[in-house]
């Protein structure tokens, strides 16, 4: 909370500084290098106008920048969601999951059958053995009494070597991080009771590498796992993740059957996802036709889709909310910006009607006057938007290292502000200022010179 308040104050102060100090300085510089007499005159007027009422200019800039921050935040989040759910033509990695039920639960026997389906594809279409991955999902809590959110752990149970070949965003790590990561994977492979965790998960658990944890199963009730933290995921996407050896989970399920005399109810539903990377589109289509054939897989029937489609399933639950953020919220904020801008410009024009009258008396056309009014508003809007976007960019990307989401299942672990925001911000500020100043510019054009100058004593 304190960080947010300080960020807000920093944003406001930074933008005010930009609009009241930097922008007039830039205009002053342009004035020196400008060649046209009229252009130089406009620059002088704009520069003076910014300083005529510094409080008003500063307050307007702050209001615009705060509202730009809301729009940028919404766009950044929705942009990340859109990118995650967009199908990529070059994406040859697919997931196979239960066609209907959420969460996906399939019998473990499907794993070997799906592997066999892959190996039975014709040569040239067949995935390599390292291009498939089995995911079992084990969820539990390290504190079965408290069961708080921070005690909750989602573990992907898989074959450790597949972490290196099948998991995304782990390819181009810096050499030292890569070496540490590979060492962690090797330790997990060697220790069946090992667990690799993301750095944020480690902090939430308040543990260190080498510590032991006991997880009480929540989706596999009665299956409690004793694990040793053997290594960490590199910073980034896998911050909230935990990965365990699937042999250990399956051994625990077998042990349950021996202990209780019946198979664990999850034994028939422990397989969550089957990942496969195929060499080309033809292979994907052939494999999908086989996997989705009810004659081959019917209890439950399966679907093969890209990971982005899988994420879209999750996002679908929030469809109405996303729509509300994308359209009514953003529109309302933009409208507020237009109204605030319009109000400020109309006050400015009213105060400066004598100046406008003099300009017109000197031969400046209504178009010149309108350009002056709109230009000043657009300058303040653009500068406020740029300042906001710049501070937002630096605060989120450089200082925070990306905004963090605590959703353990989906890839929103780190969200950064795209460089494009550096032009979105000024564009939003300038655009709303342009719309907001049109009415006042029209009023300024229609200033009656005789009436205005008649008031001058």
């Amino acid at each position, binding site marked *: 909370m304190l960080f*947010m308040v300080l960020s*807000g104050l920093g944003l406001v102060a930074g933008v005010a500084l930009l609009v009241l100090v930097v922008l007039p300085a830039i205009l002053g510089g342009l004035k020196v290098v400008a060649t046209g007499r009229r252009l130089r005159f406009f620059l002088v007027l704009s520069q003076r106008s910014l300083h005529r009422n510094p409080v008003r200019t500063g307050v307007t800039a702050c209001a615009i920048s705060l509202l730009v921050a*809301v729009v940028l935040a919404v766009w950044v989040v929705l942009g990340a969601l859109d990118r995650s759910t967009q199908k990529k033509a070059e994406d040859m990695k697919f997931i196979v999951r239960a066609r209907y039920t959420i969460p996906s639960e399939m019998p473990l026997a499907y794993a070997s059958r799906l592997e066999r389906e892959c190996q039975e594809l014709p040569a040239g279409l067949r995935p390599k053995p390292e291009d498939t991955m089995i995911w079992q999902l084990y969820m539990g809590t390290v504190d079965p009494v408290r069961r708080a959110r921070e005690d909750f752990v989602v573990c992907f149970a898989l074959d450790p070597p597949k972490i290196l070949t099948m998991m995304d965003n782990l390819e181009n790590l810096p050499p030292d991080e890569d070496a540490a990561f590979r060492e962690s994977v090797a330790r997990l492979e060697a220790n069946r009771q090992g667990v690799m965790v993301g750095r944020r998960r480690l902090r939430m658990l308040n543990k260190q590498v080498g510590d032991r944890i006991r997880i009480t199963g929540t989706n596999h*009730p009665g299956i409690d796992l004793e694990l040793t933290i053997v290594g960490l995921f590199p910073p980034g996407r896998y911050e909230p993740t935990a990965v365990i050896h699937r042999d250990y989970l399956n051994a625990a399920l077998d042990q349950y059957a021996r202990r209780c005399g019946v198979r664990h*109810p999850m034994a028939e539903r422990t397989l969550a996802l089957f990942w496969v990377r195929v060499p080309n589109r033809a292979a994907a289509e052939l494999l999908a036709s086989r996997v989705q054939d009810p004659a081959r897989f019917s209890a439950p029937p399966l679907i093969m889709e890209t990971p982005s489609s899988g994420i879209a399933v999750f996002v679908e639950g929030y469809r109405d909310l996303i729509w*509300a953020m994308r359209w009514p919220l953003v529109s309302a904020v933009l409208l507020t910006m237009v109204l605030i801008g319009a109000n400020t410009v109309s006050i400015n024009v009213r105060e400066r009607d004598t100046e406008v009258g003099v300009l017109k008396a000197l031969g400046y056309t209504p178009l010149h006057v309108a350009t002056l009014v709109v230009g000043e508003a657009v300058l303040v809007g653009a500068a406020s938007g740029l300042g906001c976007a710049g501070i937002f960019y630096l605060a989120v990307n450089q200082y925070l290292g990306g905004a963090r989401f605590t959703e353990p299942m989906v890839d929103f672990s780190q969200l950064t502000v795209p460089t494009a925001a550096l032009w979105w911000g000024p564009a939003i500020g300038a655009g709303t200022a342009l719309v907001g100043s049109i009415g006042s510019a029209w009023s300024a054009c229609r200033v009656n010179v005789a009436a205005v100058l008649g008031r001058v004593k």
Partner: protein
Amino acid sequence: MDFAFPTQFVLAGCVAIAFAAVVICVKVPFRYNLRHLLVRWRTTLLTTLAFTVVVGVQTVMLAFVKSMQQIVARSGQPWNVMVLSDGATDEIYSNLDYPGVRNVELNPLVLKDRQGVSLASWEVYVVINQPMVSAEGKRNRRFISFRGLEDAERAAAVHGLELLPGGAWFSATGVQSVAASPGEASAIQAVIGEGCARELGRDRGGPLSVGDVFEAGPRRWVVVGVMKSAGTTFDSEVWANRRQVGQTFHRERHTTLTLRTADAAAARELAGDLNENYHESPVHAVVESDYYSKLNDTNRQFLGAAIVVTVILCVGGAFGTMNTMFAAVALRRREIGVLRILGFRRRQILASFFLEAVVMSTVGGVLGCALATLVDGWTTTSILSGGQGAGKSVVLRLSVDGNVLLTGMLIAVGMGTFGGLAPAVAAMRLRPSQAMR
């Protein structure tokens, strides 16, 4: 933030009394201020409109959060106990071992009906993701929650739900023929919540009603009844025969056993007793209202986001007011000087300009709240989650009630106060000689 608590009423009362006291005790030249607002109608209009939009957006956001809170609060009965498998925190991950758990309903704390049968509902809960094609041919997906029941009428009695007129509970077999041609598979009989009926009928131009057929999973389902379930999570569910649901979605085991007790104290006693003393098969028993209150995690996240957006919008809106009021002070320096010469005190000038800002924000707030009431009753879908990897897809009915409107008004007055104070202080500090220059 609990919207059901009358904090807002108390706060609103205090604010109203404070402003009334200022107007009466300080003897503000209020008519002068009102005339100024009317004379400078364009500025007043733009500022008020900005308030209207900001307050309108905030009120809708608060209504959304409140609807989420209401659905959580209304779904669970404090006298019901949910029995899940040991370790399971969510119905969706529960797998009850029927032979081991069947004696739970024999506990003497469980209420019995007139025939002496325990008021216990054996259920299987499944969520599916159904691909849909809209009337315009657009492909999308929809979450549908299914609750398979052994005995629908008993389940309704346990959960305190009833059917809308014209409907019936599903039969013992749970299927009926709706075949257009002989040999076509029969449809599964379903009783659906009102929200679910609206959601499933969205692409048909109206809610589903008795006799309508819809597709979900690999089967067709025929609506035999619609539940009076507004404001609960059951509103978003499809209820059908347990065996049919289990076979269709490959969930043969029960997920939940819901037990009715005499009152909240008995429910707590039963939950504690089952957790500690039931040894045939370990279970996790939880009072139903506690279970649903834990689904508030999503609400907390939305409330957090709503507060952040609200604060930013408020500060932005307050800056707008500040601008208007600083301009008003600058334009009326001489008038302020005249007022001072006429004997008006500094505190009267302060109160005068301050109230002018508050009036604008109040009018904007009233309009914004009026705008927000237009969304009252709108339905929207969302997910309730306990933050532990599961959740329930629900159909929410937005409720813009007195508490939400009052909160919106308080925010509006707060913005006016924050934005109007600095310019009012600036006006107060003007000396008559300085102002008349």
